[in-house]
């Protein structure tokens, strides 16, 4: 073993190959210089082979440290039951398990919605336990600080709506009606939808991450021991904040979208400003605004529910917090789009 640098596990194989039952292998390392873990791994391998073939190994020639390491590595026998094999499961079993997890998810979500509703009732009757200051902090975090992104997105959506519409309307020489298209589209639909999607990414993910981290730190357990429920203390201020803030953000998004449309109409299609304003005010009624604002509040509830639900459900690791935030956004967007379709359908049936 003089040439330590060139040694590896395979080099030891010939040494053991030639040995027969009853013979002994004697290890001598007097000329060994520097050695590291690879030598130990090779030695352990040699000893295991020898053991399997009932060949005695004389380790008295090893330096003290090496002998101690060998002893240490074999002191606690390998727990064969501790090794995690890759569980092989039939596709039917896996399918059943995913179906069951979807079912359980729905079950817990229903339970969570029930708890949140109870908290809402407690709030109305004045028994909800939460700090009003938390509500203000949430309003601040959800509202004013979201204005820049809402401005940008809504302005551009208005712009896009105007362009897409105008190109088609120009075929009939009816470019002027792009004002109707933009203002109705924004107030009834896009204002609420775009705001909701922005808020799902901003606040929904933040809620899930905040509450997930609180879960990891046992803060939620500590709250429960002190007599506070997560649905009162954490969910309620967040949900209220979104219910209150979303309509304002939606209204603001409507205005920005219409301004975006106006910019396109005036600068690209030579429609006079007065005419654009006149068409807009004639086509949009108060009902359209109210439908948009109602949607905003509804989406606010859904975002808060999805964000807080995923946060509370969160496991106790850093990656679980990341998953909670991701799944909060996905869940919110699914909720938003489904709810939007339902509301649109109802409005269509009711003729409003």
């Amino acid at each position, binding site marked *: 073993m003089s040439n330590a640098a060139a040694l590896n596990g395979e080099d030891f194989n010939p040494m053991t190959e030639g040995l027969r039952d009853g013979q002994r292998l004697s290890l001598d390392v007097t000329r060994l210089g520097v050695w590291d873990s690879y030598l130990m791994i090779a030695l352990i391998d040699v000893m295991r082979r020898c053991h399997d073939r009932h060949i005695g190994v004389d380790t008295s020639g090893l330096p003290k440290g090496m002998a101690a390491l060998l002893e240490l590595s074999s002191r606690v026998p390998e727990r064969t039951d501790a090794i995690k094999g890759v569980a092989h499961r039939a596709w039917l079993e896996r399918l059943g398990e995913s179906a069951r997890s979807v079912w359980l998810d729905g079950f817990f979500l229903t339970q969570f919605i029930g708890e949140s509703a109870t908290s809402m009732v407690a709030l109305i009757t004045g028994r909800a336990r939460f700090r009003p200051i938390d509500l203000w902090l949430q309003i601040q975090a959800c509202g004013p600080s979201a204005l820049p992104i809402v401005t940008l997105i809504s302005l551009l959506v208005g712009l896009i709506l105007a362009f897409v519409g105008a190109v088609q309307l120009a075929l009939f020489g009816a470019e002027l009606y792009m004002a109707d298209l933009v203002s109705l589209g924004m107030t009834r639909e896009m204002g609420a939808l775009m705001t909701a999607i922005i808020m799902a990414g901003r606040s929904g993910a933040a809620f899930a991450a905040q509450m997930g981290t609180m879960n990891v730190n046992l803060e939620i357990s*500590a709250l429960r021991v002190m007599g506070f429920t997560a649905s009162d203390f954490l969910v309620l201020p967040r949900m209220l904040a979104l219910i209150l803030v979303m309509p304002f953000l939606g209204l603001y998004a409507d205005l920005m979208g219409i301004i975006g449309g106006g910019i396109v109409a005036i600068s690209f299609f030579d429609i006079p400003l007065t005419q654009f304003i006149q068409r807009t005010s004639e086509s949009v009624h108060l009902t359209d605004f109210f439908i948009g604002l109602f949607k905003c509040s509804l989406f606010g509830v859904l975002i808060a529910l999805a964000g807080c639900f995923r946060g509370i459900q969160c496991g106790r690791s850093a990656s679980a917090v990341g998953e909670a935030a991701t799944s909060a956004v996905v869940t919110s967007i699914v909720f938003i789009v489904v709810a939007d379709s339902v509301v649109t359908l109802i409005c269509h049936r009711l003729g409003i």
Partner: protein
Amino acid sequence: MRTMNRTDSVIKVQDLTLAYGDIVIQKALNFEVRRGDIFVIMGGSGCGKSTLLMHLIGLQKPLHGDIFYGKERLWGVSSEQREQLLRKVGVLFQSGALLSSMTLAENIALPLAEFTALSKKEIDQTVSYKLALVGLAGFEGYYPSEISGGMQKRAGLARAMALDPEILYFDEPSAGLDPISAQLLDELIQSLRDSLGATIIMVTHELASIFAIGTHSIFLDSEAKTAIAFGSPDQLLKTSQDPRVLNFLTRGHPERAGQGVRHE
């Protein structure tokens, strides 16, 4: 001040089975904690000490059996009643579990503002007093992330004591503390018991603390899935014949059991 009657049973655990889903962690647990005890729940890692604590403080529902606070049941009653019972309980979690979005003062004021009729000024005074008790006077405005782990733990204790609880739970109080801080915390726990007449229940495997302040204990074993020894830690060390208990109490050198291991 509460009267100290040593024979009072503050907590009685009856035939308790703890489980996560279908996996039973501990079964057939029966023990009593008396007023003024410093009761130690000990055992190796993963034997279910912390799980037992979660059940005692009402965060997890037992699979079987019940826990009595005085004469009242913790489980099998409405959640309002359970909450009422737990009002006299304070818990210090392993990492302190302070609300990270609030300052120390806000953390400690939280239960005071909700469950007492104290004025703002009185709350502030109480907060300062509780922080001073744990040696953190002047740290009111700090956020938990701005102070060290040991300080977080002490602030957590100040919050647990906010409502002057009759029973204080500690989850691994000395874990992650240097020997001197751990010793100071032990002394603090002992003086809280003596001066407030509180009953202390702590989950720990820190031998130094166990022998220094523990007056009673149970030893949980993960193989047997139940408690295998009861009694004061000193007594257990002297009289226990069970190799598992002796190994634990002597750090794996049971032959030294009679020689005052804790003083080495």
